[in-house]
């Protein structure tokens, strides 16, 4: 049996662990993390499937990861597991004050029913000139991560609460390491190109809201969830502050009420902060870590920024493929 250690229990760590455990029966998978749901960055995210741009990752890869994730979640939406997994369809509008240069982004053929908003549809958003109307998926991590943990255990995987400060902690007990530690990779993988983009959100009670509304500039968004509506947001680069900022809260609430006036009647249930683990390109590759006389492959899968949930399954599949290749490399079929 190949012992695989997955570092990190956010959406990336758990989905990668599940993918490995379910598709490579010879692997014994253990997830090691300091934080589990509901304390991960993924738990704060609204979980709307809408890709986040990676300036230095080829577009065809980004589209592939997004499509793999969308298709995977769509089949869950239409199954009896949907409620437990926290996955459901959500329709809505992305509106722009200035007409964007790309009216037809690469993901427009992945989401459902994508089309330009009609004049009648735009009338409800007087400050906006252009809009896109489509149906996408919301994947609520407070439920999804629990469901993934269950799936992992059913596939024989294990979960341990343990903070990993160096890969050398793992080289003697594990054959392959999969690094899904998000922002933690700044220290763990000594990657200074990784930085936080601080996001604050409000969760409000507004059960009459059935559509998402997002300002194309990414700074204001309304994402209805199962039991609350997420209002956002902020995108503060290199800001490590985890406590709630009241000026950010009022700013978010005001901007969202402008987009959707009925929100003035909503009650705020909670305020949360998450640090998006941002990088110019996603790091999804194998590296060899040498410790003593051991050479252990590490598959890195981090730097998803604000697009973790949107591409998680696609990157989990690719990481799993790298794990398979590492096993083959370690145990090549004997030529004797």
């Amino acid at each position, binding site marked *: 049996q190949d012992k695989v250690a997955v570092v990190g229990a956010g959406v990336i760590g758990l989905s990668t662990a599940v993918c490995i455990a379910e598709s490579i029966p010879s692997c014994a998978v253990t997830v090691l993390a300091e934080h589990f749901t509901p304390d991960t960055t993924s738990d704060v995210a609204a979980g709307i499937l809408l890709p986040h741009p990676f300036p230095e990752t080829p577009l065809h890869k980004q589209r592939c990861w997004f499509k793999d994730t969308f298709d995977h979640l769509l089949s869950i939406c239409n199954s*009896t597991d949907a409620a437990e997994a*926290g996955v459901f369809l959500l329709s809505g509008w992305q509106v722009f004050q200035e007409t964007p240069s790309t009216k037809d982004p690469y993901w427009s053929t992945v989401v459902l029913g994508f089309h330009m908003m009609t004049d009648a549809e735009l009338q409800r958003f007087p400050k906006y000139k252009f809009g896109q109307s489509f149906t996408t998926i919301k994947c609520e991590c407070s439920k999804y991560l629990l469901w993934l943990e269950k799936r992992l255990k059913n596939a024989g995987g294990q979960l341990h609460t343990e903070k990993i400060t160096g890969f050398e902690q793992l080289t003697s007990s594990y054959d392959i390491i999969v690094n899904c530690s998000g922002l933690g990779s700044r220290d763990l993988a000594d990657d200074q190109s990784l930085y936080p983009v601080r996001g604050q959100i409000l969760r409000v009670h507004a059960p*009459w809201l059935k559509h998402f509304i997002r300002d194309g500039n990414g700074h204001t968004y309304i994402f209805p969830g199962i039991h609350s509506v997420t209002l956002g947001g902020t995108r503060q680069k290199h800001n490590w502050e985890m406590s709630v900022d009241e000026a950010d809260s009022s700013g978010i609430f005001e901007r969202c009420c402008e987009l959707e006036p009925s929100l003035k009647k909503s009650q705020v249930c909670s305020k949360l902060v998450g640090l998006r683990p941002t990088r110019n390109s996603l790091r999804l590759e194998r590296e060899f870590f040498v410790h003593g006389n051991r050479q252990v492959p590490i598959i890195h899968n981090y730097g998803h920024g604000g697009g973790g949930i949107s591409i998680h399954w696609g990157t989990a599949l690719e990481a799993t493929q790298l794990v398979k290749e590492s096993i083959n490399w370690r145990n090549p079929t004997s030529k004797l």
Partner: protein
Amino acid sequence: MRVAVIGAGVIGLSSALCIHDRYHSKVTPLSIDVYTDRFTPLTTSDGAAGLWQPYLHDNGNMQETKWNKETFDYLLSLINSPDSIQMGIFTQSGYSLFTEPMPEPSWKDIVLGFRHLTPQEMKICGWFNTTLMIEGKSYLPWLMDRSVCTVSSPSFLPSCTKHGVDVILNCTGVRAGELQPDPLLTPGQGQILRVDAPWLKHFITTHNPKSGKYCSAYIIPGSRSVTVGGIFQAGNWSEANNSEDHRQIWEEGCRLAPSLKNARIMDDWTGLRPVRSSVRLDSETLQLGNKQCEVIHNYGHGGCGLTMHWGCALEAANLFGKILKKKRPSHFW
């Protein structure tokens, strides 16, 4: 001038409000009293899910299409107003599914973003659009608050006229036949389940031309629960829930949306749609005893009461205006 409105569902209350708003400054005094044995939350309007969606075919009834449109436009104009949530108005998108391609409906340009489904979306034919919800349980109390009428226990035509009522607004819905026999009016009985499934954010209505209107499963999420239905029994006066209908609704609903399977069923409710070949919206002069009384009939909206109510209220107000002209031809209205 004394007006008696009979019926406190969405038709009665909105007609009363419309007439009051248009004429209270022109006719003084104008007293409007609502008489009913049932008011919110126990009316047919309260039980309805509140989806704005006319029938697929208007049968060439241009008037009803006009009333539908007037209602939609009116509700849409209120969507960003401070009262919208209290009134129970909000937008919702969703799907109308068919077993075979259907001609586009008369209301395709009334709703927002109407389009055909793409092959990725459903393996059957259908449409997608954004429409409005108008929930009776919120709307009726809002109308009652705005109402300058007093709502009281039942009163019949003879005693109305004893007190010198000038105009009667007959908004009695399915039981209009008790006041004046109407062979065209019949109950369209329907049972629904209310389910706790807050992850559902779209309405889904299915239509089977062979089984008729409302005989096919539908799922309509609301602000407090999800309505699951699909029963239409013409001529059935029973308001009791029955387990056979419950089973059918649940099985078909789960087939339509598999995620429902693990949802908690909150309760059942049965209501009688006031079905008529066309809405009765007209006026007549009735001889009651030794008095003449003007009656405006506004009933028979079937499963489209909420969808059509405001257009009908405007028309009822027009008919009221004609009555005023008749009574005081020299007056400027």
